[in-house]
């Protein structure tokens, strides 16, 4: 294990976090929130000093990063960045309990959007800290190390190990030969889409959607996070804003490689199986919920409203963002079940969204049908293929292992969480909402509820789940596996 290189990379991560703090600092100055400003500056200097020591003190001779170091760096840097990111919430006294502050920060970086703040607190929360919450979504969406790689020339060809460990999806491929250029291209697309969304929100003429709200909403949507600045979520905004957010939630949950291919004019590759299946699921889910809302008595939506709300909710949950215009907790059971299903499916691989990922679901389905055919013709030779390309056995194996670990962690978390005596629906959806990086669940943790009532122990379980969900389970598991640390 190359400890020095790990230490140095973590140092760089901290230096970048110090840089990230510039955003809330500027906000604090704009809104004259001097008290909070000092606390943010304190956290910023802590990151800066410690980062500088880790990155520059001592010599690093061996610069090689193998798969093992890649995994340890990715997992530990997400923990470190969350530990320091929680500081201003805690020291400024707005979230006095450090575990709560950590929960909020991890929820931010992992683009979960689950909050321990109740509505009353959110409405009077200082702007600079709201901005920091939103900005953690944006940074966490595309990945901290991808950001690092885009700007730093980390030597050696094995950087792909870092990209692989941090990017979601069953198999990660580069867009261009160099890792650094690939990371740069991803961030440029990401930033361009975010800016486009911000401009569309600002120009929408929504009285409640001021510049500040537009920025944080754009950050939260881009990262498919889900923090909002208001206790009433998204219901206070105009239909225009809601539709813009719906469209962008879908856009941000499509594989970013698709945008690259569109820019290069390679449309066939852009609209690959995964994207088509994803869009199919979105459309089907929206239609089913709309019809369900229309046919069930007791709901007073017009067809247009039903369509709008169901589109918003489906986009919000399948992209694992977690915004809400309506309290879908009160919807009929069929609609809620559909929403729960899309929660698990999640976004496309290579996007900022969470969940199991559409490509994995597709491979699972193909694998299952393939196995069934083999039962009929035991000697049949056939490989699973996607987009006319053979899916390597290794990828299929990886997907199966992922699903196995996913279910195992899900059940274990559910068991650990159940000590807190909430009802089963709440517990189940709370684990699902954190593990899939969505945010709100159903029951007590529904769109109008929050996670504050859980004990500190359960919150730690959720923190682990959020990190494991964002990093696709294995880096977090391996970080705590003895075999990783054995010589």
């Amino acid at each position: 294990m190359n400890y020095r290189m790990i230490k140095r990379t973590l140092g760089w991560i901290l230096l970048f976090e110090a840089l990230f703090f510039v955003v809330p600092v500027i906000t604090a100055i704009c809104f004259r929130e001097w008290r909070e400003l000092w606390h943010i500056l304190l956290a910023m200097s802590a990151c800066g000093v410690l980062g500088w020591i880790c990155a520059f003190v001592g010599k690093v001779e061996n610069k090689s990063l193998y798969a093992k170091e890649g995994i340890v760096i990715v997992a530990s840097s997400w923990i470190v960045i969350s530990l320091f990111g929680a500081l201003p919430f805690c020291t400024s006294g707005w979230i006095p309990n450090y575990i709560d502050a950590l929960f909020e920060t991890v929820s931010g970086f992992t683009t979960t959007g689950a909050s321990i703040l109740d509505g009353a607190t959110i409405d009077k929360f200082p702007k600079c800290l709201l901005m920091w919450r939103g900005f953690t979504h944006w940074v966490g969406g595309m990945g901290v190390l991808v950001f690092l790689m885009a700007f730093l020339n980390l030597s050696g060809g094995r950087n792909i190990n870092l990209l692989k460990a941090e990017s979601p999806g069953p198999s990660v491929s580069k867009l261009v030969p160099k890792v650094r250029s690939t990371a740069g291209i991803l961030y440029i697309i990401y930033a361009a889409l975010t800016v486009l969304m911000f401009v569309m929100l600002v120009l929408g003429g929504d009285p409640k959607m001021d510049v500040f709200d537009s920025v944080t909403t754009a950050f939260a949507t881009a990262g498919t996070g889900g923090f909002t600045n208001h206790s009433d979520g998204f219901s206070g905004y105009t239909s225009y804003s809601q539709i813009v957010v719906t469209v962008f939630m879908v856009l941000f949950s499509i594989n970013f490689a698709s945008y690259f291919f569109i820019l290069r004019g390679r449309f066939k590759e852009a609209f690959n199986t995964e994207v088509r299946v994803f869009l199919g699921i979105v459309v089907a889910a929206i239609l089913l919920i709309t019809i369900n809302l229309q046919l069930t008595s007791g709901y007073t939506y017009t067809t247009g409203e039903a369509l709008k709300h169901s589109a918003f909710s489906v986009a919000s949950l399948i992209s694992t963002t977690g915004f809400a215009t309506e309290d879908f907790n009160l919807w009929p059971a069929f609609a809620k079940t559909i929403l729960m299903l899309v929660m698990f499916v999640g976004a496309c691989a290579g996007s900022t969204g969470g969940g199991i990922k559409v490509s994995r679901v597709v491979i699972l389905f193909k694998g299952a049908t393939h196995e069934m055919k083999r039962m009929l013709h035991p000697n049949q030779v056939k490989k699973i293929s996607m987009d006319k390309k053979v899916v390597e056995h290794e990828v299929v194996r990886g997907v199966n292992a992922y699903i196995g670990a996913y279910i195992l962690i899900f059940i274990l978390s559910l068991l650990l969480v159940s000590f807190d005596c909430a009802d089963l629906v709440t517990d189940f959806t709370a684990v699902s909402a954190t593990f899939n990086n969505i945010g709100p669940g159903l029951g007590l943790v529904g769109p109008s509820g929050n996670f504050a009532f859980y004990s500190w122990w359960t919150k730690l379980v959720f923190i682990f789940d959020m990190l494991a969900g964002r990093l696709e389970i294995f880096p977090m598991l391996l970080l705590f596996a003895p075999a990783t640390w054995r010589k």
Partner: protein
Amino acid sequence: MNVIIVGCGRVGATLAEKLNDDGNDVTIIDKSAEKVKTITSRCDIMGIVGNGATHTVQREAGIDRADLLIAVTNSDELNLLCCMIAKKEGDCKTIARVKNPEYSAETPYFKDELGLAMVINPEYATAEEIARVLRFPSAIKIEPFVKGSVELIKFRLPVGCKIAGMSVKEVVMKLKCDVLVCTIERGEETYIANGDFVFAEKDVVSIIATVKNAKDFFEKINYKGNSIKDALVVGGGVITHYLCGILERSSISLKIVEKDLSVCEELSNRWDKVVVIHGDAGDQELLREEGVSNAGAFVALSSTDEENILLSMFAKSEGCNKLITKIKRTDYDSVINRLDLDTTVCPKSITADIILRYVRARKNAKGSHVRTMYNIVQDKVEASEFIVEENSPIVGKPLCELKFKSEVLIASITRGNTVIVPRGNDIIQAGDAVVIVSGQLGLQDVADVLK
């Protein structure tokens, strides 16, 4: 540069690694997912699994943005097809490895009609390398320029050498030799030779000359170890075939030992002067009988590495001084080096080196007219070959009237088939191939050498 490599064998992988180290954007295509995975986890390059001779795969690899496509799969036909498709799909230079002698005889057609930038035959390149070593066995390095008509030869002046203590000017005047001294390495220092430079013993000297003049020069300075008259070659494969052709008109006579009678007959029918022995080279008595101990050089070109190594060691123990051993696998280089086998040649490494040199020259020469470029002394002195254009400022004036920068040397001028070693009164004409030695790296154009 954007480079696409088709075929991830030893040559492809070596090229990918080296080109990536040089800072190029490399994409590699191979049918085997495993090979692609291995190389992409080791270097920062993009890998694509598929058949490189299909336009869909080439498009996926970004052929429209590529500057160069190198086809080094195992199949000649596939390589040629790759290059032709690449030419059609994108505007890039193409290099193909072609092993089959019937195809490589068609090289001019491939270049002119199919637009390939380079066709490389590993066996022929190896034979050329062997021929160069046989001509100047004690040269440290020999590099061909202007399609092999001029060579750059690097050698060490022995102790007690005649020209030690003489200046460059004196040597040229007294010996009446048409060679051009380029650089002299003494200890850590490298000098670009001017007329007044004085040679010393143990200097490493680089000269540029035609094959014949270089030979004259070495004879006149009494440079020993330059006297190979005959060579004993084991194995009658393709390389041997090429070697016979290259050495046909030289004074070196070849004796070939080959097991297969039909191959023997074919060789002796094709090459009159060559002595072909039918027999097993593993038979030590046979080798002794054919005079392995007195042979000027022993060249082991059989098909297996182990046999070649053992044969060379046997020849060495019998007292043969110059050994050339063909080795296919380079994995055990460090072990083989310890065996003290003198010169070893590896067709794949030679292929990779030649392609690499071409790419480096092109990269250095984006928008300029460098044809070949060669590092005489790593990172200090370069020799580059240019084609002079009509409106170039160096055309039409005697060299002594042109004002050159310091550390610049016009090393040779090739006009048609004649090679001129430039002196003050010579005039460069448009269309000449000029070799320039310079301490200033990365020359873009001939005009860059003027003040």
